C-alpha cells in the first residue's frame, strides 16, 4: 500500500479558505444546529433538511438528542452531499450555535474556515480567528412578533432557518414547501412560521456580508424520492405485510414504530362505515407481557408483532425460548440503542445481536433480520411475518436508532408482488386427509404442520407447551424424544439459512480484502470503500441481511485474504457469531468493532482498515 491520506473528508477543502481564495463549496458540507431539547428546534431543522431535499440535493439528517424532555443539549446534523453520501461525518463546517450552554465547545469543534451563526444577544461568544461568525439579533425578531415565554425559543429557531436560507442560498419557496409538508398544509401555522423566516431572511440579506464559501445549488438528484424514518417504513411494511395484532410497551427508540402503526392502521385497516378494525393494538404492562401476547396471538393464527429496544429484549428472554421450542410465530422489532442496562438510551448501536441470536435459555437460537435501509425496513415488514409463519418461530428484526428515528431519502416503496406466506396450517379437511402430528417432520425441512384453535376436526387440536414433547405434542421426558426434537429444530434452523434474505455481495476481483457488515453502517462503509478505492485499496463488501448465515458468507471469506467485520458494539458480536459458524475460516476474520453512541463515519472505517493493513 502506498501513502494514504488518513482523513480525506474532513478539512482539505476548508483549508483553502484560510489562504484567502474563496471558491464556492457547493452542495458538499455539513451543518450542525446546536439547540436545547424541547425548544421546537426539530421543526426548524426539518424545514432546512426538507427544503434542501426539495432542491434536489442529496441530504441526510441525524438528531443527536438527550434522554430528556426539555432543556438538555441537542445537535441536529445535516449532511449535504452532491455525491449522494448520507453517512455521518465527524466535522460540520456550518454551526448554528443557538444553545448558550454548549456554545464554547461547539465553536471549538468547527474546522478552520468553518462558519458560526450565533445569537448576537448573548454577551460573550468565544472568538476564533480562523472561522467566520455571523451574529443574528434574535431578540429583535422575537420582540417584533410579540411572542412570549416558551414560544420565544421556538421563534428563535425559525430565525436561524431564515438566516441559513439566505446565507446558503435556499429559495424561500423551498422553505415554505418544507413547512407546508411539516404542518400538513395547515395554512395558519405555515404563514406564522414563514413570517419569521422571511424577516430573518431579509434582515440577513441587508445586514450580513457573506464571507464564507458554503452554498447550495439546485440539483436533480432527489426527484421521485421521499424521506422517511426507518421506524415509519417498518410500520408501513408491517401493515402491508398483514399485521393483525400488536402488543407493545413504550421505549425509545422503538416507540415511533408503534406510533407509525397507530397513525396508519386506522387509515388503512378500518372500515370507514362500521368502524370495525382488522387489527388490534394493545399497550401491555411490560415487554414480557407484550411478547406473551404475541405468542398467544401467533398460536391462534394472527400476524403478531411488537417493537422494543434492548431492555425490552432482555425481559422477553424466557418467552423467546418458549416461542422457539413450542414453535410459535411472532415478529419482534428491536430498535437498538446503547447499553447494558439503560445505557445511552438516545444513542445508536448494534449491541443486541449476540444476545438476541441466542435469546432464551437452553439451546434457543433465533432468526434475525438486519435491515440497513428504510427500503429494507419496509420490505422486511412482510418478510418477517412470512418467515415467522413459514418457520413457525419468533423472528427478530434488528434495526437501530439511527436507521429507525432519522430521516432517510429513498425510492418509493414497491407494493409486495407475492401473496402472504402463511406457512403450513392444516384445515379440518386436511387433517382428515393427511392426519396430523404437530411436530412431525413430514416434508424433511424440519418444519411440522400446525392447526389453529377453532379447527373442527376431532383430531385437529394440539397442546402447545414449553415442556419436553414428542411428535404429537404430548408431554415426554424420554431421552430419544428430546434428542430427536432438538435435532429437528436444528434442521429447521438450517432450512432457515436458505429462506432468510440473502446477503448483498459486492465482489471486487481486484480485492484481497473483504468487509462484512450489517445494518445502517452500510452508508459509512459504502463511502469508505470509495475513498479506499480512490487511494488504491480495492475491497469487496458482503452485507449481511439476516442470521443464520448460509454458505455465501463462507465463500466470500474464503475468496479473500482478510475480512474485516465492522459493527457498532464493543465486542465484535457478529464477528463472534461468524467465527463460531465457520471455525475453519475464523482466523481470516478480523473484528473492527466500535461503539461511542454515534453513527459510524467513513473516516473511522478508512482509518480502522488502514491501521490494520499497515501492520
Amino acid at each position, binding site marked *: 500500500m502506498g501513502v494514504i491520506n488518513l482523513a480525506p473528508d474532513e478539512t482539505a477543502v476548508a483549508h483553502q479558505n484560510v489562504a484567502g481564495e474563496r471558491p464556492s463549496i457547493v452542495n458538499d458540507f455539513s451543518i450542525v444546529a446546536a439547540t436545547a431539547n424541547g425548544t421546537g428546534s426539530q421543526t426548524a431543522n426539518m424545514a432546512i433538511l426538507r427544503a434542501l431535499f426539495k432542491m434536489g440535493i442529496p441530504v441526510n439528517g441525524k438528531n443527536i438528542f438527550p434522554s430528556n424532555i426539555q432543556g438538555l443539549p441537542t445537535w441536529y446534523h445535516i449532511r449535504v452531499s452532491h455525491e449522494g453520501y448520507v453517512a455521518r461525518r465527524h466535522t460540520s463546517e456550518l454551526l448554528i450555535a443557538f444553545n448558550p450552554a454548549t456554545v464554547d465547545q461547539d465553536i471549538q469543534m468547527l474546522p478552520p474556515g468553518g462558519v458560526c451563526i450565533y445569537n448576537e444577544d448573548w454577551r460573550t461568544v468565544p472568538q476564533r480567528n480562523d472561522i467566520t461568525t455571523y451574529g443574528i439579533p434574535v431578540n429583535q425578531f422575537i420582540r417584533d412578533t410579540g411572542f412570549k415565554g416558551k414560544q420565544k425559543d421556538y421563534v428563535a429557531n425559525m430565525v436561524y432557518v431564515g438566516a441559513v436560507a439566505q446565507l446558503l442560498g435556499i429559495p424561500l419557496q423551498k422553505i415554505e414547501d418544507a413547512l407546508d409538508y411539516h404542518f400538513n398544509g395547515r395554512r395558519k401555522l405555515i404563514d406564522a412560521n414563514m413570517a419569521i423566516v422571511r424577516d430573518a431572511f431579509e434582515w440577513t440579506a441587508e445586514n450580513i456580508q457573506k464571507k464564507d464559501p458554503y452554498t447550495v445549488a439546485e440539483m436533480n438528484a432527489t426527484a*421521485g*424520492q*421521499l*424521506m422517511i424514518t426507518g421506524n415509519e417504513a417498518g410500520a*408501513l411494511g408491517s401493515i402491508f*405485510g*398483514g*399485521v*393483525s*395484532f400488536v*402488543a407493545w410497551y413504550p421505549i425509545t427508540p422503538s416507540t415511533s414504530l408503534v406510533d407509525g402503526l397507530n397513525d396508519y392502521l386506522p387509515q*388503512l*385497516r*378500518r*372500515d370507514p362505515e*362500521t*368502524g*370495525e*378494525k*382488522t387489527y*388490534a393494538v*394493545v399497550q*401491555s*404492562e*411490560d415487554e*414480557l*407481557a*407484550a*411478547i*406473551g*401476547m*404475541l*405468542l*398467544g*396471538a*401467533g*398460536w*391462534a*393464527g*394472527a400476524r403478531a408483532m411488537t417493537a422494543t429496544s434492548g431492555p425490552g429484549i432482555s425481559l422477553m428472554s424466557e*418467552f423467546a425460548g*418458549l416461542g422457539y421450542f413450542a414453535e410459535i410465530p411472532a415478529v419482534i422489532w428491536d430498535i437498538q440503542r446503547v447499553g447494558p442496562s439503560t445505557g445511552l438510551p438516545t444513542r445508536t448501536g448494534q449491541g443486541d445481536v449476540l444476545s438476541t441470536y441466542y435469546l432464551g435459555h437452553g439451546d434457543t437460537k433465533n432468526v434475525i433480520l438486519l435491515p440497513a435501509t428504510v427500503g429494507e425496513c419496509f420490505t422486511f415488514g412482510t418478510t418477517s411475518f412470512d418467515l415467522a409463519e413459514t418457520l413457525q418461530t419468533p423472528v427478530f428484526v434488528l434495526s437501530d436508532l439511527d436507521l429507525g428515528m432519522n430521516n432517510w431519502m429513498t425510492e418509493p*416503496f414497491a*407494493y409486495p408482488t407475492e*401473496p*402472504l406466506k402463511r406457512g403450513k396450517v392444516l384445515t379440518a379437511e386436511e387433517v382428515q386427509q393427511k392426519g396430523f402430528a404437530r411436530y412431525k417432520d413430514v416434508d424433511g425441512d424440519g418444519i411440522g404442520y400446525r*392447526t*389453529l*384453535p*377453532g*379447527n373442527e*376436526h*376431532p383430531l385437529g*387440536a*394440539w*397442546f*402447545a*407447551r*414449553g415442556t419436553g414433547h414428542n411428535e404429537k405434542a404430548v*408431554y415426554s421426558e424420554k431421552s430419544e424424544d428430546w434428542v430427536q426434537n432438538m435435532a429437528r429444530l436444528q434442521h429447521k434452523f438450517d432450512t432457515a439459512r436458505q429462506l432468510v434474505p440473502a446477503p448483498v455481495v459486492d465482489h471486487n476481483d481486484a480485492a484481497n480484502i473483504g468487509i462484512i457488515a450489517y445494518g445502517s453502517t452500510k452508508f459509512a462503509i459504502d463511502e469508505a470503500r470509495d475513498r479506499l478505492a480512490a487511494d488504491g485499496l480495492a475491497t469487496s463488501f458482503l452485507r449481511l441481511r439476516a442470521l443464520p448465515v448460509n454458505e455465501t458468507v463462507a465463500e466470500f471469506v474464503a475468496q479473500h485474504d482478510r475480512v474485516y467485520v465492522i459493527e457498532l458494539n464493543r465486542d465484535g458480536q457478529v464477528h463472534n457469531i461468524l467465527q463460531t459458524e465457520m471455525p475453519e475460516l475464523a482466523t481470516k476474520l478480523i473484528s473492527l468493532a466500535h461503539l461511542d453512541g454515534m453513527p459510524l463515519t467513513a473516516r473511522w472505517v478508512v482509518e480502522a482498515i488502514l491501521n490494520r493493513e499497515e501492520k
Partner: protein
Amino acid sequence: MMSTGKTARVNLIGLSKTDYNGGASTLCQGCGHNSIANQIIQVAYELNIQPHQMIKLSGIGCSSKSPAYFLGRSHGFNSLHGRMPSIATGALMANHTLNAIGVSGDGDTASIGMGQFKHMMRRNVRMVYIVENNGVYGLTKGQFSATADEGQELKYAGSNELPPIDICMEAIMAGCGFVARSFSGDAKQVRELLKAALSHRGTAVLDIISPCVAFNNHDSSTKSYTYGKDHEEQLHDIGWVAPQEEIVIDEYAPGEMKVVEMHDGSHLQLRKLDEDYDPTSKMGALHRLLWAQEKQEFITGLIYYDGERHNLAEASHLPATGLANLPEAKLRPSADSLQKIMSSLM
C-alpha cells in the same frame, strides 16, 4: 364417536362425556386440582360446548398442568410461570370468537403472575380464569405461596410470618366483573359457578380452594379439606339455568332468591343464605371479604358481579370474524393506498 354396541349417552351436540376427557392425570391422588378438572369436563358436557370452540390455557405449576387432563379435543397452551394472562390475551384478541378456560395456581397468579393477572382483569378479556388455590407451591415441593395464612406452619417451609393476598379482593380492585370463590370439594357449587362464569362476557375469576394433599393438608390450614368443610360459609345456594331452559322459580321461596341475568340470556339463581348480601355492590363485596379474612373463614359463592363493562375485544371494535381468520384481502391494503401514502411523503 365410538360405537360401543350400546348407545352411549350423548349431549345435545351428540358428544359423549368421554369426548371431553383429556389425558390421564399425573397429579397426586386426592389432589383438589383433579376434582376441578373433572367438574370442567362435566360442565363442558352439560353445556354442549363444542371442544374446538374452546381453548384452555395455563401457567406453570401442578394446577397449570391440569389443562392436559380435560378437553383433549380443544387446543391448549401450557405457557410460562405466571404468564398465562398474556398468552390468553393475545390468543383471544387473535380470535375473539373462541371460549377460553385458564387454569392457574396461587403461586402462578398471586406471586410471579400478579402483574399480568391484574392487568388482565383491567382489560376484561373474555375468559374463565380459575385459580386452584392451595396456599403452597405444590410443584416445587411445599414452599409458602402468597395466599398462605399468617402464622401457618408447614413441614418443610416452617412458619409463615406474612399476611395472605386475597385473590378475590385483588380481582375486584382490578376491575373484574365476575369474582367467585369455591372449594374443590364442593363439586356442585364448582359446577354451578363454572357454568355462570362461562356465560360471562368478560373475565370471570374463580378462586377455588384446592387442598394440596402432599404439602398443605394440615387441619389448621384454611386450604385443607377439613378446614374447608368446617369453615366454609356459603353466600348463596347457586342454581344456573341455561338459556334454552325455562327458569323455574317455584323451587325457591320468594324473597330468598336473587336472579342474576347473564349476557347470553342464561340466569344465575342465588339463594340468599346471607340475608342482605348483594353481589353487585363492590363495597359490600370487599367488606364481606375483609370480614371473612378477619374471622379466618372463607366465603363461597358469587362474591361480585358487574356485567356492564365492555370486554377487550368489544372495546377494540373487532369484526365478527376473528383476526386470525381474516383473508389476505382484508389484511393487506391495496396497491393504490400504498401509492397514495408514497406520494404524500414526497
